[in-house]
């Protein structure tokens, strides 16, 4: 681990000023950053601890019915906020399907948005990784890549974004509020994470020194609260990243789908919004055929990046299932196994 300066600013402006120095990194709960620093994947020279900044740990309801969530709100606190879970049930379900209870208690909203890929080659310093070191190559391309990207990847990088939380956020048009050296701006979460192209070292749209201070979900997204699900396939029932996942949200009018939202996780370097699939569902009745067509559209551009062709078929199927579950309606209580296909078990309310 490299030597670094540890700075604990007292305000957002102080934090941003401190981060103006190149080589700086913001530290929230550290559930991802510190691991990456220990293995040497990230070697910031200045670590700016933002966990004690004032006012970033609030959930505020906006006059229009939307919600503004401070970047330092803990994942568990958000998922268990009664009103939030009622208004944005797929987001709460996604949060509770991620990591472990201990990690969720520590991890923050802003940190989750900024988490890095789980690609083993990104973590292994002896491997070539364009994302870690620009121009060094991609050892995942011909490596152990059964869980890598099938959408939006490039020859330079086939990593996926691992977040569960971000998948329904993208589906629901969430926006992040950013402060930076040149003032504040807003970025849709869908544009926050960027596809690798020829510059996979750039994982997000944030400029150097910019800090996410809040996440906003629009009032419009509450219209899906009765028909919204997050579904996640994984290799053990809890504490595992998604093989593939999907968020689906529907709004009905007179027996027809008025609005549809679909996003996929674990398939690309960003949560993958499937707008063409959404459009195909708009104004039609919910049916298995319509969902299958939507799934085809969602994965129309998919290509295996290695030994992972199965993920394309699996992603199609999970889109259909997530939509079907959304039609059935949001469960009245959080499933015992959030986001699991096996979450139909009634009467158990613990979180695995």
């Amino acid at each position: 681990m490299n030597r670094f300066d540890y700075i604990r600013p007292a305000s957002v402006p102080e934090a941003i000023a401190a981060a103006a120095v190149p080589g700086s990194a913001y530290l929230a709960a550290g559930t991802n950053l510190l691991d990456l620093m220990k293995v040497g994947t990230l070697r910031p020279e200045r670590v700016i601890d933002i966990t004690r900044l004032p006012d970033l740990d609030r959930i505020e309801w906006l006059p229009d019915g939307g919600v503004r969530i401070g970047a330092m709100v803990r994942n568990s606190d958000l998922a268990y906020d009664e009103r939030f879970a009622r208004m944005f049930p797929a987001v709460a379900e996604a949060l509770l399907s991620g990591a472990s209870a201990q990690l969720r208690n520590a991890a923050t909203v802003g940190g989750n948005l900024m988490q890095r890929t789980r690609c083993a080659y990104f973590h292994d310093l002896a491997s070539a990784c364009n994302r870690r070191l620009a121009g060094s190559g991609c050892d995942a391309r011909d490596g152990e890549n059964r869980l890598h990207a099938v959408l939006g990847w490039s020859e330079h990088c086939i990593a996926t974004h691992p977040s569960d939380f971000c998948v329904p956020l993208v589906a629901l048009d969430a926006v992040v509020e950013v402060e930076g050296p040149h003032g504040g701006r807003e970025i849709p979460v869908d544009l926050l994470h960027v596809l690798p192209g020829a510059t996979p070292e750039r994982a997000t749209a944030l400029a150097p020194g910019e800090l996410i201070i809040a996440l906003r979900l629009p009032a419009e997204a509450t219209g899906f609260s009765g028909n919204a699900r997050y579904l996640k396939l994984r290799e053990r029932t809890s504490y595992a990243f998604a093989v593939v996942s999907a968020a689906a949200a529907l709004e009905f009018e007179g027996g027809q789908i008025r609005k549809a939202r679909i996003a996929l996780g674990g398939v690309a370097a960003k949560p993958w919004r499937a707008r063409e699939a959404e459009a195909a569902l708009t104004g039609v009745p919910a049916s298995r055929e319509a969902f299958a067509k939507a799934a085809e559209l969602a994965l129309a551009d998919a290509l295996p990046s290695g030994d992972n062709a199965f993920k394309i078929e699996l992603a199609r199927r999970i889109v259909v299932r997530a939509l079907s579950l959304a039609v059935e309606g949001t469960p009245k209580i959080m499933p015992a196994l959030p986001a699991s296909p096996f979450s139909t078990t009634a009467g158990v309310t613990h979180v695995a």
Partner: protein
Amino acid sequence: MSPETISQTNRSHRHGSNAGQPLTRRDGVLKVTGRATYAADNHPDDMLYAVPAVSRIARGRVTALDVTAAKAHAGVVEVLTPANRPPLAHDPDEKMPPFGFRVEVLQDDGVRYVGQPIALVIAETLEAATEGAALLDPQYETATARTDLSNGDRFDTATVGIGAPARTAYGDIAAGLAAATHVTEADYVTPAQYHNAMEPHAVVAEWDGDRVTLDMPNQAMALSCAAYAAYFGVPAENVLIRSPFLGGGFGSKAILNGPQILAILAARMLQRPVKLVLTRAQMYGPVGHRGHTWQKLRIGTDREGRLTALHHHALCATSSFDEFLEPAANASLPLYESPAILVEHEGLRLDTGTPGPMRAPGEASGSAALEVAMDEAAVACGMDPLEFRLANYAETEPGTGRPFSSKTLRECYSEGAKRFGWAGRPLEPRQMRDENGFLVGWGMGTAVFHCPHFPAEARATLRADGTALVETSGADMGQGAWTALAQIAAEALGLDPDQVEFHSGVSSLPDGGIAGGSGHTASAGLALNNAGEDAIAKLAALATADPASPLFGSGNIGVVPRSGRLHRLDDEGRSESYVDILARTGQTEVIGTAKAARDQEAAAHHAMFSHGAVFAEVKVDPDLGQIRATRLVGAFAAGRVINPRLVRSQYFGGMIWGASFALHEEAITDRRTGRIMNADFAEYHVPVNADVPSLDAILTEEHDPYVNPLGIKGVGEIGITGTVGAIANAVWHATGVRVRRFPIRIEDLVIGRS
């Protein structure tokens, strides 16, 4: 706090035998309150920290290490490399019988696997040592790594496991296959798996002249003392190992490894205590693992569904420089009657650390393949898998015809099937759904495990106050050995367990043998029993020779110990307490000792195995391929049960391990570099609580007059066997997809794996 201060406080009120009681663990409160002292909790004054630098290549040599940079780092005291590593008295490239492997202790600059120690940095703090190791910035000359079937070097071998024959043949396999009406033939693959004990390998080493004290988790203290003594050129009695608690061992803490030897060496070199604790990632290399296997089974069956031939071939990965081959095919020897049986092994050299025994070595991976193959053969014969196994039930040991010392497998089958509700299971797959539309499948497998017995010694001291001290250097890896062993000792001494002070976990005590092979309770237990009996005999001799005792003259008739008193055998009303006997005869204590081992005569004439039957239910999402094991019922017959609570827990643990093998665990190796890409608990999956199905373990009653005088077999490993196959067979029954590679993955059920 030391376990020696533990006494049983939750005294249970009961009458009769101590053995057979479901006592809770003697050390349970210490563990759940954090007062149990594990090796790495020790901090002797003036202690240094050692951190190994490990290789990131699989094959080649280290061409440069920046020792200057490491030594320049504040707090770094010394850097051990091949250039300055002090000599060892035993050549590390020579095996250390009976269980020792070649170890990598900086004997040269060669690199033979990823994770091999290539230097050891010793510093005043853990942080300084860690940073020093990072600063070494090793440079390599890299050779192409052999990582898989495609590029490993195959070789013939005479032995597998630890000294087991690599090939055993009974009857004419070709004739048996020719006589078959159907031959089931299939290939099975099991991955490399790592022990991943919760407690990492650790040692705190402190020298005093030519004597050394080692605080370390250890499953085989006496053997380890002898081995360390050989490496360091000191008498074995100069090595003291203290291993009061182990946070899991599973075979990986029975065998010496390079990093621990280097830390002990550093402590002697620097004349200061040294602590070394491996990181999780560093446990993927030098401390053993379950080797990758490629197995082929051919099962010939006749019209009645009886085996005409059973051929099991296992290709087993080992390292480039030493041999530990999973004795996987030997799993096909003891279970099913067949006129022709051929089991054989081949080796495959890969650039990995040497595999080693890992909970049910050979039996686990071999049983996984065998039990799936038996399921496939049952399907081919149109028979229910249980009926098929019963049709091929071995009444005597297949091939040799030796009687079993005891075999209650038929009862395991019937009790397990009844509890599970096996009757009425449809033969065809994909017939059952639950109320939510998930596919439901039922599968079963036979469990079997051999019954090794290690020589062991013990001492029992009856004290003037009527209590006893019993001593043996056993190891409690969490399985509850100390509780069960104390129960055996108390039984022999005619005392309640809370009147028995139990000393263990220190190598200076009488040799308790090895906590391995599921043989610890039997081995150390027999020694404790015999030591207790010896103490009682000496006490009886005092009493029966004393005219003042009510037992005077009972020498020929005999006495029986019960509740702290000796009773005349033919007249229970005549008795005397231990306290009175000792007081009147002026003794402060009576010491009994014993050395116990297996009766070789009984062993030669009997086949000795624990048996069981495991029934599994899985549910599978028909579209998404997500699998969940929902129910496991195991019925096991393992001789006499000393503590049913602990035994049931051992079965549960084994069955969960089996579920892990079937559905979760796999070390993923980059085939180009040999690096393990998931060497951490986030990515190397072991089951979480939510993966653990409903568990039921039936303790089938069994009396074995031959296995040892106590009638105890072993329970620690058998739960894995049978379970892996049962789950895989249940997945087939649910889906109709036969998966022959472990762990079973989502893609196997969605599109089939390439």
